[in-house]
C-alpha cells in the first residue's frame, strides 16, 4: 500500500498496534484541515505490527498525549522532504487537560476554568493521579 510521502509534516511511527485511533482522537486530529493518514497493522521489524499516523503540514503537537498513550512510539519531523528531528518519547510526569477526573467528589467537577492535571505516581504501573483529589486515572 502506498501513501504519499510528506514534504512538510509529522510522522508518528512505531505506534503499538491498535493505538493509532486513540492517539488520533486524543490529539483531536479530526478537527484539523490538513491531510492525515492512519496506517494500521503495518509490518515492523521491531514490534511485528505497528500503526503509523502521518500529518501533512505544520501542527502544534502535544507530545505528552502521545507519550501517555504509547511512550514507545517515535515522532519524526519532516521538512522539505527530509527528516530533521526524531523525538523519543517517555511517560510524561504531568498531564494537563488530557484526562478528566472521574471522582464525583473532586473539585474539578464543579470549579469553572480549572486545568485538569494528573501527575505520574508510578511509571512501572503507568499510574496517574489527579493533582487535586489524588484519585487514580482510569
Amino acid at each position, binding site marked *: 500500500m502506498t501513501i504519499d510521502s510528506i514534504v512538510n509534516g509529522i510522522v508518528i511511527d512505531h505506534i503499538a498496534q491498535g493505538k493509532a485511533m486513540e492517539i488520533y482522537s486524543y490529539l483531536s486530529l479530526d478537527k484539523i484541515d490538513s491531510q492525515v493518514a492512519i496506517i494500521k497493522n503495518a509490518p515492523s521489524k521491531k514490534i511485528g505490527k505497528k500503526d503509523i499516523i502521518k500529518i501533512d503540514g505544520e501542527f502544534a503537537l502535544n507530545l505528552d498525549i502521545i507519550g501517555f498513550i504509547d511512550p514507545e512510539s517515535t515522532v519524526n519531523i519532516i521538512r522539505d522532504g527530509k527528516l530533521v528531528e526524531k523525538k523519543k518519547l517517555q511517560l510524561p510526569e504531568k498531564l494537563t487537560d488530557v484526562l478528566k477526573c472521574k*471522582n464525583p*467528589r*473532586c*473539585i*474539578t*467537577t*464543579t*470549579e*469553572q*476554568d*480549572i486545568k485538569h492535571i494528573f501527575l505520574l505516581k508510578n511509571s512501572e504501573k503507568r499510574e496517574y493521579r*489527579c*493533582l*487535586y*483529589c*489524588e*484519585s*487514580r486515572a482510569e
Partner: protein
Amino acid sequence: MKHLIDIMELSVEEIQELIALAEDIMNFPEKYREKCKYKKLATLFFEPSTRTRLSFEAAMMELGGNVLGFSDANSSSSSKGESVADTVAVVGSYADIIAMRHPKEGAPTVATMHSDVPIINAGDGGHNHPTQTLTDLLTISLEKGKLNGLKIGLCGDLKFGRTVHSLAAAMSRYEGTELVLISPDELKLPSYVKNSYIKPNNIKYTQTTNLDEVMGELDVLYMTRVQRERFFNEEDYLRLKDSYILTAEKMRNAKADMTVMHPLPRVNEISTEIDKDKRAAYFRQARNGKYIRMALILKLLGVE
C-alpha cells in the same frame, strides 16, 4: 511551609517542631497571647463543621488575633456560583491566613493556586484533614511520651475514614510502629494506603475483624465513626454502623495505660461510661487540637 494541604507535605522534623511549639504554648500561654495581634484568620467553611471551625477560631483568638468568615456555603457567595478561586483571591486581600473546609476533594489545592496568603486545609471531603492528624500526633506524643515503638489499633471505618488514612501514613514514618487494623471486611483500609505508606516503610501490620482479640496488645486504640455521609447506600450504613462499639466490658482486657482516641463527634461507638476512664483521651485530644492549630498558625505566619 507556605500552606498545609496534606500532612505528608510535612517532614517528621517539621511535625516535631510543631509538637514542641504546641507544648510550649500549653505550658506558657501568656508568652503567646499577643503574637498575632492585628492579624486576621478567615475561616471559609463551605460545609459546616462546628468543632473544627471553633477550634481554629479559638486558636487565633488565644494568639490575640481576629477571625472572620462563614460557616456554610449558603451564607457565602459560593451559593451564587462563585468559584473557589475567586472567593480565595478576594478573601486573601482581607485576611492574613485562611482555614478552609470544602466538601469537594482538592478544593484547598485550588485555593493555594490563587492565594497570596497561607491556606490551611480544614478538611476536603473524604480526602485530607491534616490538622486532625497533627492533633492526633500531638495527643499520642503527650499521652505516651513518644511517637516511636507504639502498637496502634485503628478501629471502625478504615475505608472511608480519612483520619485513619492520614494517621496510618503519618505513623508509618516512626520507627517501631506496629499497626493493627480492626474493621469489618467491607470497611478495610484501602490498599493504596498500605502500598504507598505502610509497606514502603516496612511497618508491621495485621488486619482483623475482631476487636476483643487484639485489645490487650494495644498501646493506643483509635476509634472512628462509621459515617453516614460516606455511604452511597443507606442499607450498608445501617448494617455496619454498630459493628464496633467500645464498652467498659471490652476495656477490661486493655492495658492499664492504653490510650483511647477518637476524632469526634462520636455517635455510639464509644460508650459514655468510658468517658471517666483515665485512658479515655478523646476530650483531651479535642483540646490539643486548639494548641496544635495555634502552633501551625504561628509557623505559617512566620511569627517567632
